């Protein structure tokens, strides 16, 4: 049943409201837009709406569906008037019902903002002077989640925003020609965390045409000391959505596309092909290898960075014949226990900030065609003694011995596609048990004690001992579980390599369960 209507007649608000009634809904929220008697200082005595009906209905349906998905409301509907309206007439009606009021308010707000922004509807204002004028209903500025802002702030933004890039175009190497290059550029940022925050902010500020943002995580309180785009009130929301809102607030002229889950071996090459440059900002070794492989196969340059406590590493992968990829340096993915993480090893907040700012600088240099003298090196950044050491990577000593970067990457991607069937998502561990899985807690003994699993595991085997105790996984199907899904995923892959096809890993680990619950 359609949830969006264009109507030539007055809106039946009671009928609309009744269609939103649902036993699961604890409340309902509606917004009505009325024709007012003035616009931008001119007195208005009525207006006419004209719509490109086919497109408006399709887009309206899409907007309502997005709001339902985005805020998890039970149902939502919208009616937009066409034809002639007088002062006080209802021009648009939006309603949403939800278990809780917060989602209903948010969904309503989202729908009306997107309707005004995206729908191909034009209004002709009739002024009391007898004149009339067509006014576009679209406007560039839109930022969702206005709860944090004061009302007067919104009024300041009724004029379309015109960016001012003078401080960078003044650079001789940038100029208007460089700015045009940036505006025509499409950059994919994978990971909107400690590294991603400066990358996304600086690229948005610089006027990149299209920014893609990939992040499957929701904001956690422990992120805030280093992830500077977010607010305490954002906790629990998807970082990709928060980041896209931040970009809309910072520079509304930037187009944003978001992915709320990590790319997969099956889609990464295709997605990379839609961008001119990729910046890898995750804290996930698998994502790094996937990015390197997809960059090489698609011929898309990639800027890698990673951090550890007070230091970081940076590598530019040109993805051109004769230049080194990440596998030229590190051929195989190391065990998660070997590489450390912000969670286990700790990190000082500004460290990813520095490395992310360096990635953003490299990105702009590449897009502007500026020299990158250390592009083929691994740069070691030490923020204890403030040193940077560049170690040139010799492509001749890398993947060449195994058929070259492209062949190596293709093989790795093909293997990864098979492996993706290893990572299984469950909302609750009880669901996994009900599906016949035996749970194996592969965290270490301290974690077992400090943070017990919500469901008692059939086995407790620390990830580092999984191989020597492989014999314990004999009958039935086993679901390995750790905090984030990384250690369990790696262990499951090692067991699969030993032809144990009955071993799986809980995608996202216990952290993902907590968010879902």
């Amino acid at each position: 049943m359609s949830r969006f209507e264009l109507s030539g007649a007055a809106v039946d608000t009671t009928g609309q409201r009744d269609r939103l009634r649902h036993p699961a809904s604890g409340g309902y929220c509606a917004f009505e837009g009325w024709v007012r008697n003035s616009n931008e200082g001119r007195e208005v005595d009525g207006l006419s709406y004209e719509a490109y009906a086919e497109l408006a209905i399709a887009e309206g349906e899409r907007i309502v569906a997005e709001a339902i998905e985005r805020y998890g409301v039970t149902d939502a509907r919208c009616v937009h008037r066409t034809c002639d309206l007088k002062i006080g007439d209802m021009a648009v009606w939006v309603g949403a019902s939800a278990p809780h009021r917060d989602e209903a308010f948010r969904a309503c707000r989202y729908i009306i903002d997107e309707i005004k922004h995206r729908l191909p509807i034009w209004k002709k204002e009739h002024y009391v002077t007898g004149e009339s004028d067509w006014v576009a209903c679209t406007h560039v500025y839109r930022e969702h989640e206005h709860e944090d802002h004061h009302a007067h702030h919104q009024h300041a933004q009724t004029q379309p925003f015109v960016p001012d890039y003078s401080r960078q175009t003044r650079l001789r190497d940038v100029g208007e020609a460089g700015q045009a290059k940036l505006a025509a550029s499409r950059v994919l940022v994978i990971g909107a965390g400690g590294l991603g925050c400066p990358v996304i902010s600086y690229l948005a500020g610089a006027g990149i045409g299209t920014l893609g943002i990939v992040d499957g995580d929701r904001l956690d309180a422990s992120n805030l000391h280093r992830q500077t785009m977010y607010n305490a009130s954002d906790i629990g929301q998807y970082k990709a959505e928060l980041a896209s809102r931040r970009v809309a607030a910072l520079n509304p002229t930037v187009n944003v596309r978001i992915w709320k889950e990590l790319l997969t071996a099956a889609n990464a090459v295709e997605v990379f092909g839609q961008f001119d440059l990729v910046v890898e900002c995750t804290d996930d070794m698998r994502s790094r290898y996937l990015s390197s492989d997809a960059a090489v196969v698609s011929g898309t340059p990639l800027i890698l960075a990673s951090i550890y406590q007070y230091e970081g590493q940076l590598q530019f992968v040109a993805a051109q014949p004769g230049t080194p990829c990440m596998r030229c340096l590190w051929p195989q993915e190391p065990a998660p226990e070997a590489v450390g993480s912000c969670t286990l090893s700790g990190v000082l907040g500004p460290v990813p900030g520095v490395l992310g700012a360096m990635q953003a600088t490299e990105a702009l240099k590449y897009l502007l065609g500026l020299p990158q003298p250390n592009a083929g090196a691994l740069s070691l950044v030490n923020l204890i003694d403030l040193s940077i050491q560049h170690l040139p990577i010799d492509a001749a000593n890398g993947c060449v011995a195994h058929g070259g970067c492209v062949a190596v990457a293709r093989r790795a991607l093909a293997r990864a596609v098979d492996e993706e069937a290893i990572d299984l998502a469950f909302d609750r561990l009880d669901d996994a048990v009900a599906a016949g899985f035996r749970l194996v807690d592969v965290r270490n003994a301290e974690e077992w004690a400090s943070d017990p699993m919500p469901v008692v595991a059939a086995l407790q085997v620390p990830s580092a001992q999984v191989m020597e105790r492989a014999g314990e996984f004999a009958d039935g199907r086993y679901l390995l579980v750790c905090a984030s899904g990384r250690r369990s995923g790696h262990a499951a892959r090692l067991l699969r390599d030993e032809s144990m096809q009955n071993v799986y890993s809980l995608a996202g680990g216990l952290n993902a369960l907590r968010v879902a619950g």
Partner: protein
Amino acid sequence: MTVVNLQYYAQLREQAGTSSEQFTTGASSLRDLYEELRVARGFSLAADALKVAVNAQFSAWDRPLRDGDTIVFIPPVAGG
């Protein structure tokens, strides 16, 4: 005996408790030197998990040591 300058990054820096040190060794190759350090400094990572650079160039593990070499051991890191 050979006197070399060592630099440590990431986990190795943490386990050694220092970013750099001068070290006198009887080892003849980088691999032997690292095995000696694993015992002396308690490094948990195997040499195969690391990269090694000598005098600002990546190097093979069988390279012989010379007096005054500056040697950097680099583990992969994943934070972000």
